[in-house]
């Protein structure tokens, strides 16, 4: 009491707190946590984040369940898959018995089935302009189907059928104009309304097994030949442009949808090769890891990744600029793969295999499919970032890269590795014990046998 009355006033310092700083307005608000971000106060930042990264990478592996389901219904092995350019849930599939099926992927049901060809249905291609589907089969026919009806009833009969003289193995459609390219004995260019090809490109006598239009630089076509070659065409020119011969045959190829001059080929020698069409002297990247011939390849619509289907009963996912796969998908019942496709929303992968099933996979194995709330989303992003940050630390790297693979894959991988080591050793020995200086050829360039013009 004296404090206030007397002359000698004593000052009492009081901490002042504004309740707005630490109280929440409503019950649903998040509690405000005042933090001091001074790094001096957090001496163990890195170790704590390391622990979090470790947990994150483990959780990612725990949640990595890529297989979503299978589409069962074909009577024979699959040959090709077709993604409808407008409808994400529509998937077309062709089989060895010539059947064409339209699937509703979301419901995992057959929408429509039609006997499209006698013998194999080799390939299909979509025309977005006319919303039609072109199929080619072993019966030397090109058939055009309409793809507009929701119940798939327009698949009842083809709109147009072209009878050709020779075998057809592949088909591809120009992105914006009504041109169709087919391959077989030669590369033929068709116009929608004509019964005869408007152009024929022939280089050598060997047949072609795969042809693809470039989706970005629209007039460029590439095809794979059975003489181990890849041939580049320009639709407007009268002759093919360039041919490059690899050591083994390429089974399939796919253009990068975001990079106009990049394409990847799936080769018989267990590898995939990414080429820049301006430089055929050597591929810009060799994608390894498969232990048997690679049958099919398809880019993700973002152009950052691609999926490859192999004869070794596995699917592998690659970053388009990395040599080794980032993931491998396989199941016990999945047999030799014949085709693979990356869905147009970049979330799913479809694979077709010999044992008549189409399988649906997640593009990112640990991704959550349901609704992700904002906080969960940020948590997932932070986790991903942490894993990326500490990806080079051995413990985390080990967990992050560890995959269970089938026994045959494991064994043959070891076998291949040992053979590669042996080859390297032999080369070294030869180099050291010959007087003549042998030219050093980079590993990438060894694949190229010749580039013809």
């Amino acid at each position: 009491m004296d404090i206030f009355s007397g002359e000698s006033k004593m000052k009492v310092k009081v901490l002042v707190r504004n309740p707005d700083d630490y109280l929440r307005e409503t019950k649903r608000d998040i509690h405000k946590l005042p933090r001091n971000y001074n790094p001096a106060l957090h001496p163990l930042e890195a170790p704590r984040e390391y622990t979090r990264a470790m947990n994150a990478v483990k959780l990612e592996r725990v949640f990595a369940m890529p297989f979503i389901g299978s589409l069962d219904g074909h009577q024979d092995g699959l040959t090709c898959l077709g993604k409808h350019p407008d409808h994400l849930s529509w998937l077309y599939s062709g089989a060895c018995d010539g059947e064409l099926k339209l699937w509703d992927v979301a419901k995992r049901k057959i929408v429509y089935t039609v006997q499209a060809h006698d013998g194999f249905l080799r390939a299909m291609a979509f025309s977005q302009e006319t919303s039609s589907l072109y199929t080619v089969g072993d019966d030397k026919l090109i058939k055009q189907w309409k793809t507009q009806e929701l119940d798939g009833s327009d698949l009842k009969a083809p709109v147009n059928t072209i009878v050709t003289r020779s075998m057809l193995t592949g088909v591809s459609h120009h992105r914006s104009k009504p041109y169709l390219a087919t391959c077989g004995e030669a590369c033929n260019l068709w116009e929608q309304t004509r019964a005869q090809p408007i152009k024929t490109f022939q280089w050598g006598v060997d047949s072609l097994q795969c042809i693809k239009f470039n989706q970005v630089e629209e007039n460029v076509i590439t095809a794979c030949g059975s003489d181990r070659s890849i041939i580049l065409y320009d639709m407007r020119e009268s002759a093919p442009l360039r041919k490059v011969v690899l050591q083994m045959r390429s089974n399939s190829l796919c253009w990068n949808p975001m990079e106009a001059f990049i394409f990847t080929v799936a080769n018989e020698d267990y590898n995939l090769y990414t080429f820049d069409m301006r430089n055929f002297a050597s591929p810009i990247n060799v994608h390894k890891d498969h232990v048997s011939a690679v049958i099919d390849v398809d880019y993700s619509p973002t152009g950052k990744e691609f999926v490859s289907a192999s004869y070794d009963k596995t699917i592998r996912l690659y970053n388009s600029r990395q040599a080794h796969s980032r993931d491998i998908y396989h199941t016990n019942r999945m047999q030799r793969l014949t085709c693979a496709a990356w869905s147009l929303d970049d979330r799913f992968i479809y694979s077709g295999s010999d044992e008549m099933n189409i399988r649906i996979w997640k593009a990112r194995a640990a991704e959550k499919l349901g609704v992700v709330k904002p906080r969960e989303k940020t948590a997932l992003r932070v986790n991903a970032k942490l894993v990326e940050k500490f990806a080079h630390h051995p413990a985390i790297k080990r967990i992050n890269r560890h995959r269970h693979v089938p026994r045959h894959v494991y064994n043959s991988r070891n076998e291949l590795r040992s053979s590669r080591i042996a080859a390297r050793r032999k080369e070294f020995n030869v180099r050291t014990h010959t007087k003549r200086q042998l030219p050093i050829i980079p590993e990438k360039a060894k694949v190229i046998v010749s580039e013809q013009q």
Partner: protein
Amino acid sequence: MSKLKILQPVEDKQEFLDIDEAASDDEDEEKHEKLLNAISKLGNKKMKITQRTEPVSRINEHALVQIGSDKSKTNKIKVDDLLSVIAEKPRLDALKKAVKQAKSKSSTLKAPLEKPQALRVERAAGYEKIKDEVSKWDDIVKSNRVAEQLIFPMNQPSIKMHSASEFTAKFKPKTPLEQQISELLRGNKHVQAENEELTPAEKEALTTMSLKEALERRRELAKSRALQSYQEAKARRQNKIKSKTYHRLLKKEKMKNHVKEFEALKEHDPQRALEKLDQLEKKRIEERMTLKHKGAGKWAKLQAIRSKYDQNARESLADQLRLGKEVTRKIKKPDDESEEDIPSVPLEKSDNPWLGGSLPDSSYPTTEITSGYRKLWDNVNKGKEIKKKMNKEVQKTAKKPSKLKEYPPTDENIDHSTTVDSAENESVASESYDVQEEFSEQLDEGLVRKSTMEDFQQTVEDIEMKQITYKKQSKRQPAPKIDPNAASVPAKTKMASDIDPLKFLSMPDSVITNSSVPVTEEGNEEEEEEQRRMTLAEAFADDDVIEQFKEEKKRIVNAATPKDIDLTLPGWGEWGGAGVKISNRKKKRFIIKAPPAPKRRDDNQGNLIINEDKNPNMRRQQVNDLPFPFRSAAAFESTIRAPVTSTFVPESAVRKLTAPKVLTKIGTVITPMTDEVLISAAKRNKETEDTMELENSKKPTPGKYQKRQKSQLTTKPTKRSKIQKNQWQITDTSATNSLKK
């Protein structure tokens, strides 16, 4: 029909067959003849020429010659034959000439390339063309590859709010009616401009005055102008007045007015009065700062000279001095009691009249002042003499460089004032004087001339000795507490007899500089240091760091030494319970003796712990090689050190740091790249160029613009560097170190 055929691709072989067939149909005989001919000519190795009888899709390159050409070589029609027919008609002479000219100039074209070669050329050309064409995507592809974040699908239409003014700006009147209306509206006073409440017309209406008001205003203005001119004239007149008395009176009046005003203010407006007081005070302070009344001016000096003979001058000088003193007197405020009582004017007993103190003896100022004046003159004269002598001395000693700094030996001749000064210095810096004296020996001994090298050597040695002794002394002084040698000092040991000298950390002796800094200051510093040390000691009085460290070492050493393993079981084979001793027999049998501890590397190292066993578990967690994209370990470590979680960095930063590289929208088809990307990029570039041009046009000086650009350029990286700095700040070395270990 023929068109269709051309469209059909027909291979060469088939073509050959076609030709053969066609030939067989028509002219069997001729063909036979041809064949015979061909056979007969096989020996001559001439090319066999196939012949064409019917238009086909492709013309054989070997069949350019007409059938039967070999037969009718003589029958060939030449241009001359045709011209000879023309010659009869005179009006076609010109044509004849032209043909002749053409004939003289013409030469045969080169043969076309072989088909495979031609194809090769075509292919190469086509490939080059497409290469160039495709390269236009280079930039966009590269930028996409390095982009921090890509959002798919690309080329989403940008959402932008269009304002009404923007929309109307685009509108152009087309119909005559619209044009008329726009003409009416444009530049009309009644159209309201943007961001303004009133139209120009309305504003005008508001500002305009009535006639009466205007007249009144004019009258007022005229009046004020007249008043102003009167005032000006008056001021001019007054300025011309030279009378001193007048001015004095004026001043007094002014002062009076001021006082009156102040008084009035005191009563009515104390606030303003205070302000006035402050102003006065400020004036006084300014006065104090200047040398106006201190007798330093020209006038004051003159007065001083005159004062010897002139009473007036003397008085005015005294007056001036008094004024100065009054002004410079420090006003003691009643409230600040903390300050010591200092005499308002420091009165020094010196003869200098300018130093003050002459006020009490103002009764007889003449003698004082004159004596002071004489002294001043004397001083000046002497100073000149000294200068002369010094110059001479310098010329003399120029040969002896070691003695250049020597003070002139004519010290005694300099008058008292300087000696007084030196005495003062002595009193103030007595300690430093000793030191200086000692060191000045190096310089002072110069009176005896040194001729031999030995002489020089000895002096140098002497100096060194002295320096060393001095150093020792100085060393002992500042840090007596921590010096273990200080134990020899008896007083110290008495005071802290219970302190173990080994418990002190042996610190390096604090370096004493033997610079010319006076010791007084050093003493101050020392005191401060002492105080600081004391406070530190107080602060850490409780935690005994050395003891702790020793304990820790002991603990570690103990943990490292193997222990005996005791396998005895109490009560097994004998009585058990509290206080029962284990028999020797049992001890011998069941206690396994540990081997002697291996020698430690830090055994005799004192205050040092060496961790000898590596931790293999830690090793396993470390990164062995530098990961691929990094070029230096430091860069990699910095990325590890920069935290990304919200515990360590703000939420907004986390959001930025963890932004995914590729974002896709659920349920949306991502279409392949289109030309629009290129076009839009080009457009964007063009737009930016346009804006830049606009800016250019606005700013007529290009130099300025460039400067601005430069500054922009420079500001950007600084921002980046700031961010990096932050990252560095956040980083923490100990954490990574612990990780590495």
